[in-house]
């Protein structure tokens, strides 16, 4: 593996629910794949030029394959459509990662909340919670049962896994689930923006760090803190760049010839994380928690900007 990139071969491809296909990916020479933990995702560089992130939903005790599940999106920008319609067993895809912005931390109880395809990162978490004998509950909502993947993998867990389709049961009662949580519980949520936003609201009364979430799409941020240009100093070379309002820090850095690996360019994947040595960033990513934002120790130059006149970064 060079520079965090390597090729994977599609070993199996199977439709596991309406509009959702599961892929099993292996290293083409049959070697071990890099280790991962629940919550991790890989980047796939699809041959149509797009890079997309997919949560690993298989079994980490099998070091020889990764599993991902891909929803064919109605307004697909081409990623999911390519995987569903063109990618075939035997094809090679370029991989980046795995990376993890959604780690399972210790808890006395877990509440997992999944919306639709958001079940994928939570599946390995659920299996691990069960292995560690930590009590957990799952709320898994979707449009209708036939479009919800992995129900068969959850059935053996009985009542702990609440599987509700909107067609028959209506919306999940998130507020009730959170209010019933014992002390020391952690809430893990992956789902559409409306669900994550609602849960953020409900969980605001819990101790900091109680809610861990991963979004499908980038968080909607209000406009940038500043509408004027600012300076970015690259500490290792001493170069000072001027970043104009419409330009990303990432582009300015790359234009100046400094090495910086990026991937999603949406503040989702975490590839371009860069340490901030001085100055205050205008965080516009969907990864950092509020506390991490306040610490200003690092930022994601693909989307985040500067709130101060100058930002000194470790590049």
């Amino acid at each position, binding site marked *: 593996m060079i520079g965090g990139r390597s090729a994977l071969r599609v070993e199996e491809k199977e439709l596991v629910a309406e509009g959702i296909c599961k892929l099993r990916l292996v290293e083409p020479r049959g070697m071990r794949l890099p*280790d991962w*933990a*629940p919550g991790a995702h890989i980047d796939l560089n699809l041959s149509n030029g797009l890079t997309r992130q997919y949560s690993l939903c298989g079994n*980490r005790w099998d070091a020889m394959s990764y599993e991902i599940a891909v929803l064919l999106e109605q307004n697909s920008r081409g990623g999911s459509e390519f995987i569903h319609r063109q990618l075939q067993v035997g094809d090679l895809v370029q991989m980046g990662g795995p990376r993890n912005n959604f780690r399972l*931390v*210790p808890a006395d109880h877990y509440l997992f909340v999944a919306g639709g395809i958001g079940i994928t990162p939570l599946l390995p978490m659920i299996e691990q919670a069960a292995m560690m004998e930590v009590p957990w509950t799952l709320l898994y909502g979707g449009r209708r049962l036939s479009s919800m993947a992995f129900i068969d993998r959850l059935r053996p867990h009985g009542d702990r896994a609440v599987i509700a389709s909107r067609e028959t049961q209506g919306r999940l009662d998130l507020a009730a689930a959170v209010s019933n949580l014992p002390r020391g519980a952690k809430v893990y949520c992956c789902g559409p923006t409306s669900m994550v936003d609602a849960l953020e609201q409900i969980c605001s009364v819990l101790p900091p*760090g109680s809610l861990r979430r991963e979004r499908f799409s980038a968080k909607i941020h209000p406009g940038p803190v500043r509408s004027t240009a600012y300076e970015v100093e690259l500490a290792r070379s001493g170069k000072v760049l001027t970043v104009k309002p419409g330009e990303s820090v990432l582009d300015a850095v790359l234009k100046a010839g400094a090495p910086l690996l990026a991937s999603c360019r949406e503040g989702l994947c975490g590839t371009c994380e860069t*340490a901030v040595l001085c100055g205050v960033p205008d965080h516009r990513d969907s990864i950092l928690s509020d*506390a991490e934002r306040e610490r200003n120790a690092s930022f994601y130059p693909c989307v985040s900007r500067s709130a101060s006149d100058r930002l000194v970064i470790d590049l």
Partner: protein
Amino acid sequence: MASLSQAIPTIGREPPVLAGDPFSEAVLTSPFEFQHALREAGPVAYLSSYNVYAMGRYNEVRAALVNWQGFESGNGVGLFNPRNETPYRRPPSAILELDPPTHDAPRHALEQALGPRMLTGFRDGWARTAEIMVDQLLKREVIDAVSDLAEAFPLKVFPEAMGIPEEGRENLLVYSDHNFNSFGPNNALVEKGRKAFTDLVGWMGKQGSRESLRPDGLGARIWAKTDEGDLTAAQAGGVIRSLLIAGLDTTVHALGAIIDAFLSSPEQWQLLRAEPTRARVAFDEAIRWASPVQTFFRTATRDVVVADTKIPEGEKILMFLGAANRDPRRWDNPDHFDLNRDPSGHVGFGMGIHHCVGQHVARLEAEVVLHELARRVARIEPAGEPKPHLNNTLRGWKTLPVRLIAG
């Protein structure tokens, strides 16, 4: 013989039996003959002295270290096998002897707290400490590179960086030495250290509490992970004690190994002086060449076949990091300390999910010391017979008398 074993399918054959005691005084003093015999015996051997399996070739050792699914640490990384022996005094390490999933959170917290980026704030202070230390050493005719440098420097900077109280810091060396001995058999080395260790158990238990740590140290940084629940309080205290136990002796022996390496190859010192940026390579090459951590055990989680040899579920396997780091199948001229070599991939820090999490700390310590020495010392010359320090896991020197020639 290798071609023969490939030609005949012999999946699950018995390993060759190797006699000899790798924990004997003779082998601990000079392990190279035993390591050679182990590598030549085959990819896997059976050590009749302790009824355990062993690996000494680079490829197999590396593959087994990486394969945490097949070779677990949770059953203890010492000789003692809780599956078939009565309980033992040493509690399991808070990170070294865990497997996923319980290993995940403490490992991640330490990776974050001890990453290269997190250590940049220590560099200038440590460089200043190294400068003062070398000043003092250059005033003396003969120094002991172990007590005056290899021990003195980490003892000065590491407990300070962790943020533990000054009182009792020297206890760490005694405690840690016995801890590393206890991974081996119950031999004279273990007997000798038991009393001093037992006397320090209470003291060690008090280290790592949040109140006892300076708020700007690495220990406090680990505790900060508990604020949002990334780590439990018990895990924080445990990993801090683990770091204190594992982070000092190992670095001491690594620094000793560097000096020893340059004594053995004086021409390499001139290479470093000409290009001080080679200090990082010098450190890793010294780790490869000397392997301060010589061995660790793993346990087979199921019947595992390694290069046609079957290792049954539940059996202990002794991984010879030192033998792998000098395996001629992997390294050209392996006994030669060589700054022109690329030492990356050595298993002196282990490999995989248990890859030494403190290596960036050790590397920074070594780097600042080497920079200072390279700047001011023209030659390092032997000044007496060195004495080895024997330990069931670690390899290093008790004394290493040298002369530092300024220039």
